[in-house]
């Protein structure tokens, strides 16, 4: 029959169009087929340094892999000899001529077992780049010597050849690994996440407190010790302050703390039964928050210490989760029940030009600006029952929902963008309890960052 034959190509074309639409977010991740391939063998350390190489190699691999820039060649395909410095490489030897009188004998392809650059550039490894080096302790300092070779240019392969220094312990080994990875990624437009932090709340001590950790889940440390319920952290653009909501004084109120040292900077809470959901403006000088002053709840703007507060939104319904555009500082998104079920809205900083961004189906919440000030990630129940949240990305100007990042693996909420604009952190109940995960903004490379207690409401900042 003629019809099915016509229909099928139309379907296929349509499907491809849909798929193409799904991945046309310009977040800088390169599709897998086009990524340069990198070989990243484990480095070894001499003497005292060897004890810390497990942490070092795990960090280096995770950073490079997580950047979403390279195709990682599995270590199982590597040759047995791993060079540690440029002088370890030997020029390839020409194959011996076939012995006379044995025309049928097959000779094995010549191989340097890893000593030749082509060992790494040809099958089974087939890498474009090779990172190698070693560590040692010198004068009480951990020294990393690291190189990146472009295997397609064997005459002049070195792209990076650098020395990194750290303390002689696991922290030091992770530090130098982070720095080496950062240099590798920077060559390909990747921004290192090393030095960035995730702020969240955790109940592992028996009470919900504000915690922070490195972007890879390491160095988890408790910031508040209120033995109360402390939630909803936000971090200042320079990473020096954290704001949050706490019940420690009775009713929920806002606190602003410096991070280092951890100190209460004394935010003035206006008289209200609830002040909550604080967020910093991009210049770090003001706070937006939600308050029940008058009637629950409106968005307010105030100085960093809480003085000079004034409402931005009008009295109508529950307005909360204000997030100021990090690029322009002149508008904000927030969630509101003003049209019934919770939805995501946008308005100018003076309250003008209010518009609903989400289409009204299901419930939408947790809007989070991309660093470029054009996209938001948010949580939405569309397609699922009430309370079954998933994470989506929307273009604010067009209101177009570009992609769905999670698909019912537990409840997925509270997305927050990494400073590199390529990663997100979020909380998920996919493993039972609520835990914090990171992923690429195309939904891949999901990594679990927390394991102890219930952990939720992460925010990625400096």
């Amino acid at each position, binding site marked *: 029959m003629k019809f099915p034959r016509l229909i099928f190509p139309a379907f296929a074309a349509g499907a491809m169009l849909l798929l193409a639409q799904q991945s046309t977010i310009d977040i800088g991740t390169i599709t897998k087929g086009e990524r340069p391939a990198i070989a990243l063998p484990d480095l070894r350390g001499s003497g005292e340094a060897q004890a810390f190489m497990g942490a070092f190699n795990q960090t280096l691999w995770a950073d490079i892999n997580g950047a979403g820039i390279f195709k990682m060649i599995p270590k199982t395909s590597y040759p047995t000899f791993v060079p540690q410095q440029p002088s370890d490489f030997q020029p390839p030897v020409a194959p011996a001529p076939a012995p006379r009188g044995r025309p049928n004998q097959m000779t094995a392809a010549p191989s340097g077992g890893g000593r030749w650059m082509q060992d790494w550039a040809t099958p089974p490894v087939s890498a474009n780049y090779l990172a190698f080096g070693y560590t040692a302790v010198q004068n009480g300092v951990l020294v990393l010597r690291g190189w990146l070779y472009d295997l397609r240019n064997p005459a002049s392969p070195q792209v990076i050849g650098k020395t990194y220094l750290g303390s002689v312990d696991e922290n030091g080994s992770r530090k130098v690994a982070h720095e080496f990875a950062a240099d590798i990624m920077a060559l390909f437009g990747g921004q290192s996440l090393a030095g960035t932090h995730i702020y969240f709340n955790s109940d592992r001590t028996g009470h*919900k407190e504000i915690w922070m950790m490195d972007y890879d889940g390491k160095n988890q440390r408790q910031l508040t010790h209120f033995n109360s*319920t402390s*939630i*909803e952290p936000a971090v200042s653009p320079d990473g020096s302050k954290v704001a949050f*909501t706490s019940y420690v004084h*009775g*009713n*929920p109120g806002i606190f602003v703390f410096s991070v280092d040292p951890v100190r209460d900077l004394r935010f003035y809470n206006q008289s209200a*039964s*609830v002040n*909550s*959901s604080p967020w910093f403006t991009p210049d770090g000088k003001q706070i937006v928050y*939600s308050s*029940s002053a008058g*009637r*629950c*709840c409106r968005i307010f703007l105030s100085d960093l210490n809480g003085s000079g507060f004034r409402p931005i939104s009008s009295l109508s319904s*529950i*307005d*909360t*989760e204000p997030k100021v555009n990090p690029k322009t500082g002149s508008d904000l998104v927030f*969630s509101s*029940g003003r049209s*019934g*079920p*919770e939805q995501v809205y946008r308005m100018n900083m003076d309250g003008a030009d209010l518009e609903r961004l989400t289409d009204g189906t299901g*419930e939408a*919440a*947790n809007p989070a600006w991309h660093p470029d000030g054009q996209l938001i990630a948010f*949580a939405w129940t569309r397609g699922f029952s*009430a*309370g079954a*949240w998933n994470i989506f990305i929307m273009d604010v100007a067009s209101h177009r929902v570009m992609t769905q990042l999670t698909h019912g693996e537990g409840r997925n*909420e509270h997305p927050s963008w990494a400073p590199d604009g390529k990663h997100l952190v979020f909380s998920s109940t996919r493993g039972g309890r609520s835990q914090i995960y990171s992923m690429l903004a195309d939904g891949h490379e999901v990594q679990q960052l927390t394991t102890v207690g219930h952990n*939720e*409401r992460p925010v990625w900042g400096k």
Partner: protein
Amino acid sequence: MFDKRKLMALCMAASLAMFAAGCKKKTPPPPPPPPPAPTETRPEPAKPAAPTVAQFSAEPTTIQRGQSATIRWEVSGNVTSVSIDNAIGTVQNTGNRRVFPTDSTTYTLTASGPGGSTTASATITVTAPPPPPPPPTTKPAGTVEQRLNTEVQDVYFDYDKSDVGGEARDVLTRDAGAIKSILADFPNASIVVEGHCDERGSAEYNLGLGDRRANSAKEFLTQLGVPADRLKTISYGKERPQCTEATEACWQKNRRAHFSPGQ
């Protein structure tokens, strides 16, 4: 009036007596003195009887202190005065009087007349009233928290709603009475109206929804006369669930306003 017969009999008797006295010398005896005037014993004029007390009674005969009784009397016969003691004084022959004796009292009525006096008495027994029940102890039965737990019920809301409807109105109306009583017994106490939500909405939004629920319940109570300055509100959003199952039954239990003691 002289009785003629009697007179004749007397004359005859006198004559006989003279004759019999002797017929001696007939000196003409001195004429007999005229017979003494006959002393007539006039009958005592029917001496009048003393008054009759036909009735002298009290009704009722036993009263409690503070109550009254009525004494009634009726005196007949030849009466000139009737009086009753115990400060009642002179009264008419017939009558009644309401009295308020504070202790058991015997009333004596004295009726006087030409024939004498008659007395009668009536006794009213006054009993002390039963003692009142002991005054309510100022120490109430239970702490504020205990009384809230037993006397004041949680009130429930629909999904994403904070209005007090239907059954919730009945519950809150009953709660208002109990709350007023608790606040009266504990003049320094305040009560906290807590607002809670089920797990499904986002945490930030639920902090606001819980606040709306707490205020909605508080407004209803103050309209029924609960003093507003004795009620505080707090929202716990979905931070303090009663239960954690993902079922409608559990979700409904969490969509509530709850009452707890203020600090």
